């Protein structure tokens, strides 16, 4: 069974993405990573036919009494770099709630981010989707992106 990895820590967004996956990608087994460390573990364990990547994620899972994970504004990029290091080509789509992405100390609008990620970091992503709460535009955008893969 093909695998989909959702890297996301916002529980509401997770649910929306899972619902989206059930509807549009029913053939895929869904894996969830709510932190960088779990994302890296998953990547090193499985190959994925699709990965949804959020940019801002915590370093570690948030658990009662386990201390503070570090908030990583560009944690998603770490995941892309790990894939690149492993010479993997799992298709990645960035799904972010912020209209810009910080790459190498500069902000780029989502429309430019895909190219900049490649130019500056040699990281390949299919596209960057702007997730807006209570809107369905992102779903359309995401559907189109998935069709192109």
């Amino acid at each position: 069974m093909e695998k989909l990895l959702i890297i996301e820590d916002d529980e509401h967004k997770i649910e929306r993405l899972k619902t989206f996956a059930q509807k549009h990608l029913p053939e895929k087994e869904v894996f969830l990573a709510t932190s960088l460390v779990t994302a890296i573990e998953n990547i090193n364990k499985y190959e994925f036919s699709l990965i949804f990547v959020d940019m801002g994620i915590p370093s570690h899972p948030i658990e009662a009494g386990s201390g503070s994970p570090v908030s990583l504004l560009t944690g998603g990029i770490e995941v892309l770099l790990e894939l690149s290091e492993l010479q993997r080509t799992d298709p990645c789509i960035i799904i972010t709630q912020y209209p810009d992405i910080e790459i190498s100390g500069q902000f780029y609008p989502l429309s430019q981010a895909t190219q900049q990620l490649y130019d500056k970091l040699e990281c390949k992503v299919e596209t960057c989707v702007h997730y807006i709460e209570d809107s369905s535009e992102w779903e359309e955008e995401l559907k189109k992106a998935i069709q192109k893969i």
Partner: protein
Amino acid sequence: MINTAKFHHELKKLNVDTRNKVRAICSSSDKVAVKVFNRLRKNLNSKELFQVEMTLSLYNDRGKIIPEHFPTQPQTHENFIRLCSLPLKNYLQHINHLTKHYEEKLLIFFKQIEELNSHIIKQDFSSSERLISEIFQNYGYSHFLLRKCVLIKQLSQDDTSLKGVYNLIDLSGGAKKNNLIVNSLLHCFQEEQDYLSLKKSIMGLRDNGDANKFRRDLTRLPFHPHAKNAEELSQLVQSNLQSSLIDAIIITKINTNLFESSDYPHLFKINGKLNETSPDINSIASTVFPFEDPEEVFFKQSSAWYESDEILEYRTLPDYFYDSPDSSYIEYTDTLIQKLSNRIGCNNLPDLVSTDKLTSHHFQQLHEIEANGTITRSSILNFLLYTKEGNLFITELDLFTLMTKTSDLARTINIQKAKTLAAMLPSDLSKLVIYLLIAKKSSNERDRFSLRRTLQRILINDYQSELLSLVEYLAENYLPIADFIYAVSNEAFLAQLSHIVKSPKQMIEIRAELHNWKGLQTGEQYYINRARSLLIDHQISIVRGEIDDHRIYVDITRFSEWVYDNMAHELNAVLTMMKNNNELEQKDNPQIYALVEKCFYEFCTNSFFGIASYLGRRIRHGTFRGHLYSSVIKIEKRHQKLLQDPVMSSRWESWKNQYEEKVQNIINNKLHVKSNIMPDGFLIPNTAGLEKNEIIAACVHGLVEDFTAQGHTHNSSQLISEYCWRLAEVDLRSINSYFKGQKTSLLDFSELSSITFDHDEEIVCAGKDFTRELHSIISDKITSISSWFKRPHSVSPKISLGYLYKAVVSEVQQTFEQFSPDTTFEENKDIELIGGAHHVLYDALYVIVYNAAKHGKQNGKVTYDYFIVHDKDSSPILKVIIDSEIKDSETELYISDRLKVSPTGNIEDAQVFENRSGIKKLYHLQKYDDKFKINKIACENRFVKIEFTYSLEY
């Protein structure tokens, strides 16, 4: 007063047209006069320009336009209206003319400089000082002379009896008046100053155009006097002419590569004569041998010898290659590279490690200084990387050795070329060293990733995934590399070592281990305390069992870099000024307040590393709304039947709209940094208000105390970031109060509840269930949202005294399982302390509780109380009282006797002989922390009663 006769005499030497224009300049307003003079300067030849300046200089009202060639007063302020820049040729012709005109005077001046130099070399500072006064009287002020004064000050180790030297420094506006030109020079020459930070700060001074051009050009002289091109040299010459003629001559001497010297024969000749005043570079080098790092001091102070061609030759290499290659003022021209290639004595990295002759001159003392120092070797490494495009080879052993003989490579290395080098190196450890250098400077995520990836590979393969083992191994022979790893491995870095650091707990333990290592290695207790605080914090968080989901954060690495780049120099200058004015004891200074306030503003507002970036990216965009709105209204899916009722449905829709508006209102208006555009933003990036005032005062005192104790400001960034968190926490508390206040409005279900009056019972019951569930969901959401707005413990420790006691009891229970005193406390009456008191309070509590568990009555009563005592005349005091019941079999007299320890007796062995307990340890704490005081240790009414206090900052 105008000497009319002389003025007219000089005026007559001009042709009629020029004469009329000079008259116009004299009779016009400043603005018109400058305009006319600017036009005139463009068209005059050097002889005519000289004559015009001579004439105008006699007219006092135009004194703001024409600087003196040998100024009677120090020129360290923007005293002159800046005229339009002329082509370099015009300035050089003008100076050429001036050197001809003043040749005789200059040559006598040079004789005195030669004599002065000779005194300095002989360390005869009294004679030097007398001559300084004489030169100033006869030939006026110059930055050149000021540099000699500062050199003498440093070489004489601040001998204040050298009045002539200090008078000129004071008259120039430093060190007591915080004049930028003078103070930056003073700092540059100081042994303990961080030269590169200072240089970056000076070369990056804000460009206010003509308003501060003179200041910018003069302050850079000791750091980077080289012009990039003819245009920049024109500006530099103009500024130096404003300072004095000799300064203008020297700046042309330094930059002869930008013009043809033979076109200006008088200037060329004078520059030659000037060089003759200088002692040879070996003699200059011998003056710094007594210092700990002779090359560093030699380099820092070498601008005092700019008259020397040999010094200028020496400086070119480090000026260009001991600096960030990305600096806007640096350009590697073919001529420069050729010149340096001729000077550099080694062509490959193995030679760079082994040779004692790094450069190809014949000055033995200089060779010695260069070989034993780090600056020339670092510069050559950077030069080779640049010229060979990184295609170099070095063995692991040689690379490690090279790292112990170089410095500041992380700030000066060329990232691209270093990457090429890393790719060619044979071992992972070699690559790691290069990636460490690259990652600190690079903003590219892949560079930092490569470092983490390589480090993890090494740790997994060879060090059982233990970072400390690698650090200890490296520290045995290559301490700088171990130190570098320690510096890089902060919490944020460790958090991203995803293959080996699997939990925040592990992250804290590794950091604590590294702090401990550093403490043992340096002997500084600070690091060991820091390690203990981290572990205690973590232990408290386990006891608390809370979910730590803070989303407010600051990238401390980047913030610290910002502080170093933008504040370090100014802070240093103010503190040095306070020191010179004997004001350090007062601890207060408005300029330091202003600097901390600037830091706090950046801490809050910076869109890359400040709170604003996390507020925007981790909270405002999506998450907050998803949490408080979208996930709340999902309730409708579970109550579809109820919502099919038309009345309920319409009321629900109406409530939803109002609720959405309220949530959106919080997002749009509150979740921001306060500004003119966002007046209701919760985070106020200033220090107004009583509470913040107390915190900033404590910060300023802390900075002054640290400077007084250490003599430098290296810890300032750490201190500032700690206090910025405390300042931000004031606003974080206020937003949490705001959320609590909003509960009433967000939990307003009156419209939904009113349905109960006019519906059948089933709907009424369902409606009640519905609103009850809604209430519960929203309450939970607000509670969890509140936890986002807390400062992370890991970046700035804070303790709850209630939980501290729980943590101590929990640790004691590991030894005495039966021991179980009541540790409950009322959270709303709890006290939270911020700062470094952690380990002291923990240790004190541990001693007392351990004693109670070991010697007290089994299942006896143990009480713990704490409160803060405020006193008008002193800072607040935390008072802690612990009472523990004694065994029934023991008498009070017996216990009292056991508790007796003479506070003046030998308590040094407290940590050695009494294992983990003992009243002696409390006295030991008292002895080494003047904030900790034992008030009472006694046995009364069948209880051991111990009371201690701890002085708080605010």
